[in-house]
Structures are given as C-alpha cells and as structure tokens.
C-alpha cells in the first residue's frame, strides 16, 4: 500500500495538470464544454484510483487469509483466494458503469436540446472520463510494471543466483518488494488496464451510435444498447462467480475456467434477449457483439496454448543446447503466436462491420469486455494464490500447506496467461473503436492515401509504427536502471547485516520497498509524458489526417508487438518452471541455467513492456479524441504561418 500511496500522489499531481490543460485547451468549444470535460477527466481518474485501492487492499489481506485457510484444506483456501480476486473484478466494472452512466446522465440533463443533441454533446464531453481512466492506467501499468520487475530481478539476481537461497526466502531483503510487485502489477495494473478498455469501448459505442446511426430513434437505441449490454455483462459476471466451485480434489484451473465460460454464456443469452426485445428479429447487433466474445476467448486461449504444454516443453528442450538457442526458439515461438490473435481480430472486425457498420465494431469491443468483471477476478486471484505460497514459505507453515498453495498458484499462472492475452485483444479492439470515434468526431469520413494530402497519412503511418518500439525500449531500459538500485541494496544488506544469512537477524524489507518505489516513480515520468505529448505534438504539426495515420501505424505494430512480448515472456518463464519440476536435468543443470537466461530476458517483456503497450495504444487514441478540437485549431494556425 506504501507504493500505491506514493504512486497516487504522483498521479494526482499529473491529473490536475492535465485537467487544467483540458479546461484551457478546449475553451474554443465553450467554457461549458471544456470545464465539464476537465471534471469528467478527474472523475474517470478518481474512479480508476478508487477501484485500484479497494482491489489492492482486499487482495493484500486475502493473501495471508488464504495461507491460513490452507491449514483447514484446499477448498477453504480456494474460497478465500477467489473472492479476494472477485472484489477487484467487480469493483472495476461496478464503479466503472455506475460512474460513467451517472456522469453521462448529469451531462445530458445539463445540456439543452433534444435527446439526440443531449446525447451527442454528452458523448463528446465524457471522452474526458475515458482519458482520465487511461491516464491512471498508464501509470499503474508502466509504474507497476517497472516496480514489479525491478523487485523481481533484484530478489532473484542477488538472492537466488549470488547467495543461492530459494525463492520467497525470508533472508532475502527484496522478497517483500517482490511479493508487493505481484499485487501491484497483476491486481492494480491489470484492473486499471481493463477498466480503461471497459470505459473506452462503451465511450466509442456511445459516440459512434450518436454520430453514425441513421435516424434519431436508432441513435438513442444504439446508445441505450451500449449501456444495457454492459449491465447484462455485470449480472453475468456476478452469476459467474458462483460457478467457481471446487471440491477437495477438484482442479482449481477448471473451476476458474468454468466461471469465465459461464459468464460468457450467460452474457450471450442475455444480449440475445436484449437485442430481440429492442430490435425484433433483426439480430445484427447481437452477432456484432457476439463476435467480440468469441474473439476474446480465442485470443485468451491462444496465449495459453503458446505459454503451456507442448510449446513450453519444446522450448525447454531448446535450452539443452544453451541460452542462445533458448532465445532463438522463444523468439520464434512468440512470432508465431501473433498469427491467430491478429487473424481473429481481423475476422471480428469484418464480421462486426458486416452486421453493424462502425457501430458494430464498437459493439464487438463491448461484447469482448462485457464480462471484464470475471476476467479481472480470475486474474487477480493469481497473485493472491502466489503470495499465499510466499507467506506459507516465509512463516515456515509446512510442506502440506505449501502443496495446497502451490496448486492454487499453478492454476493462477494459467489463468494469468489467458487474461494477458484477453487484455491485449480487448485493447486492440477498443483502440480501433476509439480510432473510429476520432475519425467521426474530426469528420475524417474517408482516409484516402491517393488524395492530395495522402502523403501525410502515409508518413503518419510510418511514424506511428515506430512509437510502440520506442516505448518498449524506454520501459525495458527503465526496468534495468530501477533493478540496479535494488541489486545494490540487497548486496549491501547481505554484506552489512550480521546474522542475516544464518537467519538470526531480520532483513530491512521496507528499505527495498522504498528504493523500488522511488525508482519506479522516477522511471515512469518519461513514458507517461511521451504517451500524452506524442499525439498532440504530431497532430498539431502534421494535421488530423496524418494523426489518423500515426494512430493506425501504432495500432498495426503495437498489437503484434504486445502479443509477441507477452507470449515470449510467458513461454520462457514456464519453460524454466517445467525444468525446475525435475525435467531435463532439473534445477542447477546447464539446461536450467540456459532457461533462466530466457526467463530473465522475458520478465520485462511480459510484465512491463507488453502491458504498457495496451495502455499506450488506447491512451494515444483517446488523447487525440479529446484534444481533437485543439489539435485542429493549432494546426490551422501553424499552417497559416507558413
């Protein structure tokens, strides 16, 4: 919680500056528009911060309670770990939908005119809410990602490699920072990431419905449909929680998958009935939404396929010939893992457009994200199970307890891979839906590269294509720098605290948490500012058409890059774990050493750069959407000078 408090202070200061910029930058649209956009921005950010705080405070309390419940049996431990995750999942969607619809209603009542005019104006202003969610997500993901990996590398490099003590050993000064990092990354980070996608996709549904649908009646129905689909998704997620049940010998992974699949099935039935009631037997919008659910499932399970089973065993076999072949095979595997998700996203776009035009694409994103409550619940369960194992180890609770927490943790690793795939897939569809909203708001009805100004769009695509690579480079180097300080501190404690290695003295855990926190906060400044400034600067200099090219270019390279890095990291990690189970020579063998190299390379890939990419793509698009009027104004002014 110490990390979260310091991170929140930094985000609070950043959010206030951006809110003032919004209020001033959008004043061309009138003070009513600019002030309310700034307020929406602050409310969106505050809700994301609140969801992160609630989720993290419960999950950190659930860790120790799960370890204690494991003394009574497996089922008791599971019945604490999963509800702990469910708190995060349902806070994200509950707070998200409640606050977003309330702000939308208030804005509607404050705006004069017909219902359609009210909705159109409110949709433009509430884009600020989505940008607030994106700002928090950026810091949660980038800052959290740097924190978690800096602590992990510090704990492993000095503790496991140099001192030769096991994982989660209480003698390791960085072990608490490492456990905190799991929560910061997978609970607060993933929650903020999917909260951002959740809000972004309903925003795009509302904007595209109110701008592109034909008649006023259809526009109103389209906006209402977007909200009610999410309402059904929340009910489906709550019901899905009750499907996560285990007996003493049950498989926890299967129980978690039961919950995910049940939520998707309940949502599908509910959305079918809703569309039937609203539009009669014209089920086009149902099929558009359904394409998103199917795409989300396929992308999630593709990530699982490439980071488990045969894929991982083959990667482990590549480690028998050294670290170079480990890296080559893992890289090749991750390249291949991008194919199916991208094809599925392409098919979802084609199907949803066929059934509902641009609005169909937004509905596809809404369909994918409707059961976010359950997805985040399952993902947040992972670090709770993992940390309960760490606590059991540190508190010397015995092998039987550790066996129970290990089996809970194994299920968490699998579901984490699925959730990461899902997060990237949903980010891609949300960013695309937000991009379409941007083109509609900016009146870019046709982006034609053969037109007179087409060269600007092509230039924009090339510039945009390199942004994800730049961002990946910046975040990975940040992990290296932050980890260096942790490594130095752990070495110092081993050197200076007498009796630490013998277990008679206590490590200064808080010092490591402090150093990691300070490092992560310092390192997230550059990527944070870059993600907001890049689209504004490029848009002002090159114009809104070129900015559309920039966003498309970033989307086209960012999505496969994120999938590749997440799956490469996951596969290297699991290959190492498979060897540690005693395969191919087990722990300490040359094969294991080669696998450890792969895992070390993959750590910042999967836990820092890949998750940050999700946020970058959405944030750049929503910044372009919100600052669109200002970008247009400044670009015209600059063009008049030359």
């Amino acid at each position, binding site marked *: 919680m110490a990390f979260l408090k310091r991170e929140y202070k930094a985000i609070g200061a950043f959010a206030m500056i951006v809110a003032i910029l919004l209020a001033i930058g959008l004043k061309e649209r009138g003070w009513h528009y600019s002030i309310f956009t700034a307020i929406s921005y602050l409310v969106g950010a505050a809700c994301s911060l609140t969801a992160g705080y609630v989720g993290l405070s419960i999950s950190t309390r659930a860790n120790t309670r799960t370890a*204690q419940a494991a003394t009574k049996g497996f089922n008791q431990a599971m019945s604490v770990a999963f509800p702990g995750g469910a708190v995060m999942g349902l806070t994200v969607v509950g707070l998200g939908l409640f606050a977003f619809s309330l702000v939308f209603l208030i804005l509607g009542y404050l705006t004069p005119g017909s219902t359609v005019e009210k909705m159109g104006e409110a949709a433009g202003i509430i884009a600020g809410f989505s940008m607030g969610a994106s700002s928090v997500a950026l810091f949660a993901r980038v800052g959290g990602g740097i924190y978690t990996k800096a602590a992990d590398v510090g704990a492993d490099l000095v503790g496991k490699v140099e001192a030769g003590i096991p994982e989660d050993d209480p003698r390791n000064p960085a072990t608490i920072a490492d456990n905190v990092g799991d929560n910061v990354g997978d609970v607060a980070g993933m929650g903020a990431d999917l909260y951002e996608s959740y809000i972004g996709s309903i925003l795009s549904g509302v904007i595209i419905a109110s701008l592109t649908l034909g008649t006023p009646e259809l526009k109103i129905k389209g906006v209402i449909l977007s909200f009610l689909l999410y*309402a059904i998704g*929340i009910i489906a997620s709550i019901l899905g929680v009750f499907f996560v049940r285990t007996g003493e010998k049950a498989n926890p992974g299967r129980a978690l998958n039961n919950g995910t699949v049940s939520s998707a099935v309940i949502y599908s039935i509910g959305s079918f009935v809703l569309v039937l009631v609203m539009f009669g037997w014209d089920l086009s919008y149902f099929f558009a939404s359904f394409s998103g659910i199917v795409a989300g499932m396929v992308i999630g399970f593709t990530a699982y396929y490439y980071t488990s089973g045969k894929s991982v065993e083959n990667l482990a076999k590549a480690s028998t010939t050294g670290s170079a072949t480990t890296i080559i095979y893992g890289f090749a595997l991750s390249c291949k893992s991008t194919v199916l998700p991208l094809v599925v996203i392409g098919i979802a776009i084609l199907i949803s457009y066929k059934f509902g035009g641009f609005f169909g694409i937004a509905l596809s994103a809404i369909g994918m994200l409707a059961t976010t409550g359950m997805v985040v619940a399952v993902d947040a369960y992972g670090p709770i199970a993992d940390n309960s194992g760490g606590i059991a180890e540190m508190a010397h609770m015995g092998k039987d307890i550790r066996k129970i927490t290990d089996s809970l943790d194994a299920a968490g690793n699998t579901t984490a891979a699925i959730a990461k795939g899902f997060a990237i897939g949903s980010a891609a569809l949300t960013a695309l839906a937000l991009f379409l909203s941007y083109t509609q708001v900016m009146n870019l009805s046709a982006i034609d590269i053969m037109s007179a100004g087409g060269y600007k769009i092509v230039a924009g695509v090339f510039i945009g294509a390199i942004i994800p690579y730049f961002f990946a480079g910046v975040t990975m180097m940040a992990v290296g720098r932050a980890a260096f300080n942790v490594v130095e501190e752990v070495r110092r404690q081993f050197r200076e605290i007498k009796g630490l290695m013998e277990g008679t003295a206590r490590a200064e855990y808080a010092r490591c948490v402090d150093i990691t926190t300070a490092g992560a906060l310092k390192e997230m400044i550059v990527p944070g500012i870059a993600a907001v400034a890049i689209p504004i600067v490029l848009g002002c200099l090159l114009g809104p058409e070129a900015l559309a090219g920039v966003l498309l270019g970033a989307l086209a390279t960012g999505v496969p890059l994120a999938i590749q890095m997440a799956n490469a990291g996951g596969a290297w990690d699991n290959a190492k774990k498979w060897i540690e189970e005693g395969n191919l020579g087990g722990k300490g063998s040359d094969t294991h050493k080669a696998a450890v190299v792969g895992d070390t390379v993959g750590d910042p890939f999967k836990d820092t750069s890949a998750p940050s990419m999700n946020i970058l793509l959405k944030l750049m698009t929503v910044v372009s959407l919100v600052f669109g009027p200002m970008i247009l104004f400044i670009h015209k002014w600059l063009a008049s000078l030359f």
Partner: protein
Amino acid sequence: MEWIGVASLTGIVALVFVFFTAKKVMRQDPGTPEMVAI
C-alpha cells in the same frame, strides 16, 4: 435516458456484491501475527 439510469443501478448492484464479498474475505482468520507482518 431512464434506461441509462438502470445501467447505473446495475453498477450499484455490483458494488453491493463487492461489499459483501469483501466482508466474507475479512471474516476469515488472518493467521498468526508473524504472517500478518509479512
């Protein structure tokens, strides 16, 4: 606009569910003071 209010209420239902789930977690035994300290 009333239907958007219904969506907002569903959000509240989720938050009520969160409240009771969190209470259920917090009712559990947190373990020894050593475990809590970790």
